[in-house]
């Protein structure tokens, strides 16, 4: 007879004296705010503009060999649609929690709605990461943990993809860590791309979103492999020293070509002094002016 009230008391003690598990509801439609990197996220970056990217020599060489025509190859039509696309692209998000059907606990968070690729599933149930020898794909494998009200997602097992849509590549050894933080009706993502093959230090991006009552469609048009006329066996590319766009940034913005070649030093304030004497501000913006 007395057991039920005591269990009730025990439950009350546990609920009241132990801090509630800190998680915040991230579900809903999140409208992308594209005030930063508007060109890069929208129409796409300028060719050979890698300023602010912590390239190593391999990353730079890989980027310099890139021809945009490579995505006309059926094998590479969808090559850049890895999870990095969530931030590098212009897309709004839709997030929802998937409960475990037995316990009701959140088994996974799903981040969806950017076109050309599958949703990102963030496993929250503590499942182990696959063997490093397991298959890599464009979705990769993502697990999440809570730090208070911050959701931290870690993605591995990716295929080669892009860091910037102008040939800056990420390798299949890359790891993406995404931090989700909510402030009222605003969501901010901070992303780190680590890549021992192409980067000397993590590349950092931040993105913001507004909660929207207009539902973001779940999944847009998929990336469909098609024949765009590249003859079989040909891989569009530029040989070393033959990239024709090296002076594109200098011509458009007066920025020294060295800066456009990236490298970690281009991310820090001291670099401004290094290019100050070489920079020639154009009198007037002539293209992609907003």
């Amino acid at each position: 007879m007395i057991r039920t009230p005591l269990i009730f008391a025990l439950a009350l003690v546990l609920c009241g004296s132990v801090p509630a598990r800190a998680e915040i509801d991230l579900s809903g439609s999140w409208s992308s705010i594209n005030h930063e990197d508007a060109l890069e996220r929208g129409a796409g970056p300028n060719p050979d503009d890698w300023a602010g990217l912590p390239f190593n020599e391999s990353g730079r060489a890989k980027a310099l060999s890139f021809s945009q025509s490579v995505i006309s190859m059926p094998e590479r039509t969808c090559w850049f649609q890895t999870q990095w696309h969530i931030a590098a692209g212009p897309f709004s998000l839709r997030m929802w929690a998937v409960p475990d059907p037995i316990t009701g606990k959140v088994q996974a968070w799903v981040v969806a709605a950017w076109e050309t690729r599958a949703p990102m599933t963030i496993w929250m149930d503590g499942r182990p990461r696959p063997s490093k020898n397991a298959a890599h794909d464009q979705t990769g494998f993502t697990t999440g943990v809570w730090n208070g009200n911050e959701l931290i997602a870690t993605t591995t097992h990716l295929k080669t993809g892009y860091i910037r849509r102008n040939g800056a590549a990420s390798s299949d050894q890359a790891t993406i860590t995404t931090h989700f933080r909510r402030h009222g009706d605003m969501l901010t993502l901070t992303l780190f791309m680590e890549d021992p093959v192409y980067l000397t230090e993590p590349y950092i991006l931040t993105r913001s979103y507004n909660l929207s009552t207009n539902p973001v469609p779940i999944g847009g048009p998929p990336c469909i492999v098609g024949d765009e006329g590249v003859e079989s066996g040909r891989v569009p590319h530029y040989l070393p020293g033959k990239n024709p766009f090296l002076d594109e940034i200098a011509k458009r913005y007066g920025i020294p070509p060295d800066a456009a070649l990236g490298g970690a030093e281009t991310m820090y304030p001291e670099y401004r002094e290094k290019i100050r004497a070489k920079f020639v501000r154009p009198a007037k913006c002539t293209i992609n002016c907003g």
Partner: protein
Amino acid sequence: MSPKLSLVLAFLLGTSLAMPVAVSAQGRGAAPPPQTAKVAASIDLTGYWVSVVTEDWRYRMVTPAAGDYQGVPMTPAARAIADAWDPAKEEASGDLCKSYGAPALLRVPGRLHITWQDDQTLRMESDAGKQIRTFHFGGWKAPAGPHTIQGDSVAEWEGGGRGATDASMKVTTSNLKAGFLRKNGVPYSENASLTEYYELIAQPDGAPLLVVTIVTTDPAYLRQPFVITSHFKKEPSAAKWNPTACSATW
């Protein structure tokens, strides 16, 4: 013991154990004094921080061309002002710090030095443009006076505790003097206001990254709030601190 009595006793036991602080405080007859902002801080924003410019590079590391406004939701009135931007006139005016006001300061590549000025006031200094912002906690009210380049900032802590590092410092700034969101003349008016969130995000190596989300609202010159995020790595010392004067053209 009857079930009803046991239920009541269990409830009292549960509630008394569940709310020990509140009950004991009332029992003493006096509430504890409120914590100061410095004591209440569950994240440490103090120290030297350096800009990491991986976004909007050509609007921050160099001065963009006249007419390059991409990404800014400008009103027609703002565009008219920006279209008239003349760097030579700006330079000659002597008012060189227009692009170092609170809405734009954290976009300028440079270093920050954050310290506690007192128990309720956090001070943030920038070496670029030699600017100082002060963040006032504890229900501070701004004194009446002219609008200033850094305005009046009220701060509060949000979140945090429970052993987590998810807290943020929310800062609301008003009484701003008009200035530029970008060096090429994209304006904000003296009616602009600012909401910012300062938080620490763990980098892959565990070192803190200071991430500041900046929301500028301006009924005169912005069609919608302008939202940008700047990030900074922590530095071990003042070794690279390099105060430089404001510039209207670089």
